[in-house]
């Protein structure tokens, strides 16, 4: 990392700071950071932490856009800091804020607990259609059967889609795009037979029906998961189930 004092070119970062022990509410801190062409926003933040102000807090780990830790608002758009490069941002100061729609715990760190609970609530595991023992070997699954769910399995749980979703902002209990992508990942798997069980989480205001198809979730997703598609497919499922329940009741 370049030396702050000697750097020829610098870039200004406006970072939203919030330290619950001392700040009543968030406010911006401004930092001048040496600029190099290959520098990511994450590296700029690390330079701040290592050399200018070690009290700045943010999450990161893999540096390669796969662990999902470093989601934040960069110039107003939810992005991964580690694969957003300064060279690709418009000239002028770069604004960095915590992800929208989540409570801020400190600086760029937001609360993730509710999101994890949502993931857990959708039965995120194979409920085997036909159980098999390890001795019986792997299930067969053709590439076409894999393609049916594969892109939904690429979700890195970065929560950018939640930060982009105005309906989640309005209703924090809304199950939201990422969790629905995961639900669809299992529902679409040829080995799985748990579709009926997962229906409960998709009904109602906190289920898929909060969604008004704004669709920005899919645009900001760094892994092309297309969570909007997962939600909308499940609107169909929810509606069908609603009517089928009547039919079933009548039959009884």
């Amino acid at each position, binding site marked *: 990392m370049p030396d702050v004092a000697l750097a020829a070119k610098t870039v200004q970062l406006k970072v939203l700071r*919030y330290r619950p022990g001392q700040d009543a509410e968030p406010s911006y801190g401004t930092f001048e950071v040496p600029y190099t062409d290959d520098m990511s926003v994450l590296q700029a933040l690390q330079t701040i932490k290592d050399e200018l102000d070690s009290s700045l807090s943010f999450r990161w780990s893999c540096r390669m856009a796969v662990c999902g830790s470093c989601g934040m608002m960069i110039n107003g758009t939810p992005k991964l800091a580690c694969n957003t490069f300064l060279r690709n941002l418009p000239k002028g100061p770069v604004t960095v804020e915590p992800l929208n*729609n989540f*409570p*801020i*715990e400190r600086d760029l760190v937001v609360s993730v607990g509710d999101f994890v609970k949502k993931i857990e609530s959708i039965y995120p595991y194979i409920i085997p259609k036909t159980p098999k023992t390890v001795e019986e070997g792997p299930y067969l699954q053709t590439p076409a059967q894999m393609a049916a769910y594969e892109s939904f399995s690429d979700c890195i749980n970065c929560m950018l889609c939640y930060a982009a979703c*105005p309906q989640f902002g309005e209703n924090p209990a809304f199950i939201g795009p990422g969790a629905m992508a995961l639900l669809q990942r299992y529902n679409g798997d040829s080995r799985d037979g748990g579709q009926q069980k997962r229906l409960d989480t998709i009904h109602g205001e906190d289920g898929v029906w909060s969604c008004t198809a*704004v*669709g920005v979730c899919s645009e900001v997703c760094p892994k092309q998961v*297309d969570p909007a*598609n997962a939600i909308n497919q499940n609107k169909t499922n929810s509606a069908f189930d609603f009517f089928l329940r009547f039919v079933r009741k009548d039959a009884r």
Partner: protein
Amino acid sequence: MSESRPYRRPIDPKWWWAPGPYRAYTLRELSGVAVALYGAVLFAGLICLVSGPMAWDSFLGFLRSPVSIVLHLVLLAGVVYHVKTWFETLPKTMPKMIVNGKQVPATEITRKAQMVAAGCSLVLVVIAAWAFR
């Protein structure tokens, strides 16, 4: 006692007019109104038709008026925009299309669907032009 005190930032009440994708969404939804309005125009015509020749003639008169022509141009623009964006959203609302073991990309679905829609419209216009020749 912990100092932990998570802060909830208020959401922007005007998010729907924020530049970029949010405004595009609002415009897409608003353009749906054009479709409804055009439906209303047709419906008014239908009512006039059943109400007798006098009413029908005044409806035709209205259609020829400059106000109506401007209205129709605006509605046409709205409907075209709606159709275009509706097909752009289509892939997000339908189950995945898998052909030869591969997922058909969204852009391709949109492009083909828009072409079919444009083709159908063209055929309708041609038929209408032929019928009223």
